[in-house]
């Protein structure tokens, strides 16, 4: 058990070490200036010396991301449930998704900033929610539609109403699809919340900090905030994986009787 777990952990650690070592070596040997590429050691020292600031900024952005993720997911689920009554073939989902993906949602931020109070978090949560909505909507709609024809025939043979079929067959069928959507949406929500900060408003988030550090030529610090953003996104992703493990039955979890 431990062995297999370690077996999974070693390769990425090795790759990361080689990557960071090579990076450090490159910066030192080539004598690169920090505005071009700061050394990992510089980023690390900025990261640890500004830990409290990092934590605070990450907490602010993560809160925006979390609120956006929750509301976007709820909206995505509702639209998917509505759509599944009208979209009956999977072929219709893909072009719809592609069409929606080309809408420059992040560019809505300044408009939303004007519509709502710019000093509040609301416009950022809203942008994050809209961005989260799409992967949830597309994946859940797929899951609700992509039901085996034989299973549908079975439901009909049992005289099931469309509502019962939704509850008994379509929704359970959509759950793995829902998690696929969430795994895309969760890190995306952090990116959206962060980028939305570039358009003005409260300045305590990761996006604002990265922008101001870069403007002040504090490149090491800017990169340290980027690192904090990556870690935040990763935590969101891992939280979804944990939730998925909790909710869906795994083959290994089922005990065998003799």
């Amino acid at each position, binding site marked *: 058990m431990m062995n297999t777990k370690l077996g999974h952990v070693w390769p990425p650690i090795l790759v990361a070490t080689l990557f960071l070592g090579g990076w450090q070596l490159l910066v030192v040997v080539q004598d690169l200036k920090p505005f071009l590429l700061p050394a990992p050691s510089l980023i690390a020292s900025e990261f640890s010396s500004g830990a409290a600031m990092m934590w605070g900024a990450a907490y602010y952005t993560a809160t925006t991301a979390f609120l956006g993720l929750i509301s976007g997911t709820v909206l995505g689920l509702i639209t998917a449930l509505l759509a599944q009554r009208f979209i009956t073939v999977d072929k219709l989902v893909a072009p719809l998704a592609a069409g929606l993906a080309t809408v420059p949602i992040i560019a809505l931020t300044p408009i939303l900033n004007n519509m709502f109070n710019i000093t509040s978090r609301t416009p950022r949560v809203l942008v994050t929610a809209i961005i989260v909505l799409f992967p949830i909507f597309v994946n859940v709609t797929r899951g609700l539609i992509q039901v*085996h024809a*034989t*299973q549908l*025939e*079975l439901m*009909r*043979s*049992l*005289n*099931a109403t469309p509502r*019962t079929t939704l509850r*008994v*067959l379509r929704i*359970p*069928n959509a*759950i793995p699809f829902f998690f696929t959507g969430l795994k895309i949406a969760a890190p995306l929500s952090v990116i959206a919340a962060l980028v939305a900060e570039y358009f003005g408003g409260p300045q305590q988030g990761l996006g604002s900090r990265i922008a101001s550090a870069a403007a002040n030529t504090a490149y090491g610090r800017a990169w340290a905030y980027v690192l904090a953003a990556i870690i935040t996104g990763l935590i969101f992703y891992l939280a979804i994986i944990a939730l998925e493990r909790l909710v869906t*039955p795994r*083959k290994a979890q*089922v005990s*065998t*009787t*003799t």
Partner: protein
Amino acid sequence: MTPTQLDSKNPGSALAISGLSKVFNAGNPNEVTALSDVHLDVHTGEFISLIGPSGCGKSTLLRVIGDLTGFDSGSVQVSGKSPQDARKERLYGIAFQQAALFDWRTVTRNIELPLELAGWQRPQRQERSAELLDMVQLSEFAHHRPWELSGGMQQRVAIARSLAVDPPLLLMDEPFGALDEMTRERMQNELLKIRMETGKTIVFVTHSIPEAVYLSDRVVVMSPRPGRITAEIDVDLGDREEMTRESDHFFRCVTSVREALRAHGTSNSTSSSPGGEI
């Protein structure tokens, strides 16, 4: 009780089909006459098999009986009712080639699905599913998930599910098609046992001549383009036992079914299923 005794004791009509026609994509260039002027009567408690080359309309006929698809002309009566009423009253259970189990439900809860939809209370459901699990000999797998079961076991769960509300009619569309020959023969014996215990009327679709002969009281031979019934062969094998499959009578029946299939200009390549060429 032998199947023939059941027949003579219980002469009620389970299924009465006359002049049935079914056309797919009518008026389009890809129009297909799936069924044409089909007549078929099945007594209560009778076991009939539908056999014929691929595309001759066996599944379509089963779907029409089960009101899973409509038909264009003729009349269909299931226990004296229209297919739609029969379906709404849950007068039949159906098993398909794929087990079509729900992965997110345990074996027990898969079997209980029809009971849930029919509004049974939990204690009654549990009692009934335990009974059915015992019948298909899967009691120890009650709380397993479908993916942990072999193909044959999954098919047994699907059959148990089709029997759940105790419908008088069982529709089976190649339920053993994906199984190896040994498992298949065992499943055939289990099905005959269930049939003996429950006295159900069974309409069974298969590609295997020996399977049709071994299971049925009557083999109904179909031919394609347009799909119609070309022969009906009575099988009077009495009680099935170890030696039945090797008896002369069995081979004579197999031969007459094969000849009936050949007689209608179809090469019948699809019926060369495992065991078909003994």
